């Protein structure tokens, strides 16, 4: 085993309320993991368990192959060598930037401390602010200081709890990329928690989608988008609609817009009705196509248009078209399918069709 972090069947909760249900994942050294999920799904609890602020009810947590937390024993946070960046940064208001960064280096001698502080401030680009107090910094600057402070003692694991949530939306992805390059530079193993998939895509090597205390799927952003294992992941990651289809063979189905074939086997007998996930980029605008649909709504997004279309049967799909194809609402346009990945869901009692927005 070479994992830097192992979370094995982690159960946890507060009082009588169980929040986590058998959460498992592992990170290799230098890997950046992300727990992605809607608010209240328990993702922050996972971080607090890894950091040692909460004790697991069941399962165990290993850092560097050493067990640090289980229902039997819980190593206190200060002995885990875990760094954490908090949502509100939690900088110490009475300390200068450099003293904040120095705070976790009390075991080094003076000279080593100074060298490490300088190094970290240089990495996060805050050298010029070494003498400033936290209240004199902008939110983005405070965040860099918080990151430098958490990374300075070279933690085995760095935990980031929604670190971008207080930032401007425009800044988030840029900051996420910056943080990623800093983490890679330091070769840190990190776990980030967020509800924003774009942040997750920008920063993480491995994403765990979490819902109601369980991890539903883990993998790269590409996998989650193109091979979602269930309706929740399909809905939570990216946009798309689900339309009915009839199973033709082991790897193909027939929809209103034609036959779709894929590599992955369909888990139903030929003739059965299943649901197929259609992403906006699966639907191409093509004036020569025999199939057409009416524009119900459109959203201009700069480089492209996102069209919401209704077909004659009443089924709605989304279509991503280059932005020079400007069509009016209620106009009929030709479309055709170009599906790379066939994603089907077997219908069960109680399933409802997903709405068209993410």
């Amino acid at each position, binding site marked *: 085993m070479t994992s830097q972090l192992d979370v094995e069947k982690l159960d946890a909760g507060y009082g009588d309320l169980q929040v986590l249900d058998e959460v498992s994942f592992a990170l290799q050294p230098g890997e950046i993991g992300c727990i992605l999920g809607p608010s209240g799904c328990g993702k922050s609890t996972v971080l607090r368990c890894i950091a040692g602020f909460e004790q697991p009810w069941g399962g165990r947590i290993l850092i560097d192959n050493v067990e640090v937390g289980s229902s039997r024993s819980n190593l206190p946070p200060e002995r885990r060598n875990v760094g954490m960046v908090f949502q509100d940064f939690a900088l110490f*208001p009475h300390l200068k930037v450099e003293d904040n960064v120095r705070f976790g280096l009390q075991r080094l001698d003076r000279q080593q401390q100074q060298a490490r502080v300088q190094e970290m401030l240089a990495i996060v680009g805050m050298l010029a602010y070494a003498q400033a107090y936290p209240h004199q910094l902008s939110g983005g600057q405070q965040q860099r200081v918080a990151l430098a*402070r*958490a990374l300075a003692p070279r933690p085995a694991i760095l935990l980031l709890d929604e670190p971008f949530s207080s930032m401007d939306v425009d800044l988030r992805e840029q900051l996420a990329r910056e943080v990623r390059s800093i983490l890679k530079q330091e070769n840190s193993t990190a776990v980030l928690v967020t509800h924003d998939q774009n942040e997750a895509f920008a920063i993480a090597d491995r994403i765990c989608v979490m819902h109601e205390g369980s991890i539903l799927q883990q993998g790269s952003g590409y996998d989650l988008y193109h091979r979602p294992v269930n309706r929740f992941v399909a809905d939570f990651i990216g946009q798309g609609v689900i339309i009915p289809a009839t199973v033709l063979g082991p790897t193909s189905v027939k929809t209103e817009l034609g036959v779709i074939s894929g590599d992955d086997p369909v888990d139903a007998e030929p003739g059965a009705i299943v649901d197929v996930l259609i992403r906006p980029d699966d639907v191409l605008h093509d004036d020569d196509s025999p199939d057409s649909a009416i524009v119900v709504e459109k959203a201009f997004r700069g480089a492209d248009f996102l069209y919401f279309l209704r077909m004659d049967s009443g089924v709605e799909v989304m279509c991503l078209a280059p932005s020079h194809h400007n069509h009016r609402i209620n106009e009929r346009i030709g479309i055709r399918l170009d599906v790379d990945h066939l994603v089907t869901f077997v219908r069960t009692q109680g399933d409802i069709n997903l709405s068209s927005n993410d």
Partner: protein
Amino acid sequence: MLVALALGLPIFTIASFLLHPSNEVWQHLRATVLGEYLFNSAMMVVGVGAGTLVIGVGCAWLTSLCVFPGKRLFAWALLMPLAFPGYIIAYTYTGMFDFAGPVQTWIRELTGWGFRDYYFPEVRSLGGAITMFVLVLYPYVYLLARAAFLEQSVCVLEVSRTLGCSVWSSFFRVALPLARPAIVAGLSLALMETLADYGTVSYFGLGVFTTGIFRTWFGLGDAAAAAKLAAILLLFVFTLVVVERWSRKRAQYHHTSSRYSSLPQYRLRGYRAWLAFLACFLPLFLGFLLPAGQLGIWALQTYDTMLDSSFVELTRNSVLLAASAATLAVALALFLGYGKRQFDDRAVSASIRVVATGYAIPGTVVAVGVIIPLAWFDNRLDAWLREQFDLSSGLLLSGSLFALMFAYMVRFLAVSVQSVESGLGKIKQSMDDAARSLAYTPPQILLRVHLPLMRATVLTAFLIVFVDVMKELPATLILRPFNFNTLAVRAFELAGDERLADSSTAALMIVAVGLVPVLLLSRSIATSRVGS
């Protein structure tokens, strides 16, 4: 938990008397004076509450957010009346304004009026007592309200301005509600002090609970009835504590914003500036300059006879006693506050509530509440030692400084606990977590994160306990070891003999010693606002 139990002992002793069957003396008291006690106490609470609130909050707002002549000076000078014990200011004002005092004599000389020819307000009255209390107790409200105003983020005030609130309405709608927990805390301190006062009301001859307890105990010799009176007083205080806690619970404000910049300063001009000046000058003048001046004049007349080696010893006793009590109180408060924060436990919270009631219990009652269990212990120990070893331990605890220190803790721990708790409330949990993730143990976090952040709060706690112990009279009077005198005791004894001028040197000394930490504190609160 154990600390709380030990300190709660005297309170429980007294509270248990509430359940005792009433006796003859109690029936007599209820028929005659209980109504008067209730009325006077209630009037004092209402009067002192309103007065300290207006002066304290008003001055705090003016000195923290407005610019007018003398603002910087007032910011700290307004704390000076805190150095005055109620009973000393009461003697002083009586000396100045009663029939034979300099003011009335001067009026008579000026106008030629004689006795009963004119109206002059009587100092030794209910109204007089309320005035005295307001003058010396408003700094509690001022202190905490000002600290709260200074800690407020500029953002919320600016937000309220952009939402269409004027300077004044943003004060009432934003700044005041945000500062409410601090103001209520200050107010409850002032009111508890009022209810617990013995020196002033006994000098003015007012019938309130404290004097009633003293009279019943030493006059009628009925400890049970006195303790019953004390227990009723305890009920009032407990109500006060509950109200205070309740209002605080609904408003557990952390910092409203993590960004700080300097507070807006409203520049006052023309008559407004002079009104503001006057509003700050009057409390300072009446609460400190005038009485201090009078004491100074008296002291000049008498100092050569009063200032001797015994005086130095009195001063040393007082300062040592106050400093050690304050240190102990702050240490215990940190211990309790931190324990409560770390293990958010109902039992700990409840025991802190019990400790908090000690502040309002009159010193007399605390003294007896302390002496009963300690004497019991002493007697037991003595008896046991005699039996086993044929030795006598005598009164090991009850006549010692230990008993006195114990009583001070019972009485004043509430002050330090309150300050420390409100200070801890301002340190976000995530800061603890951050420090722990940086390999700091909880004790290290207390030292490296909490203490620097709470320096002002801890200093406030230390100062208030220090000054309180300096001024404390009845418990010291009863519990002090034989031949151990303090300045307060000396001043009280002399004034009780109507030797007002002779008492002035000791009184002035109390005020002067009390002033040192006041000045230290005022400097620290002026600079402790994060980011300034």
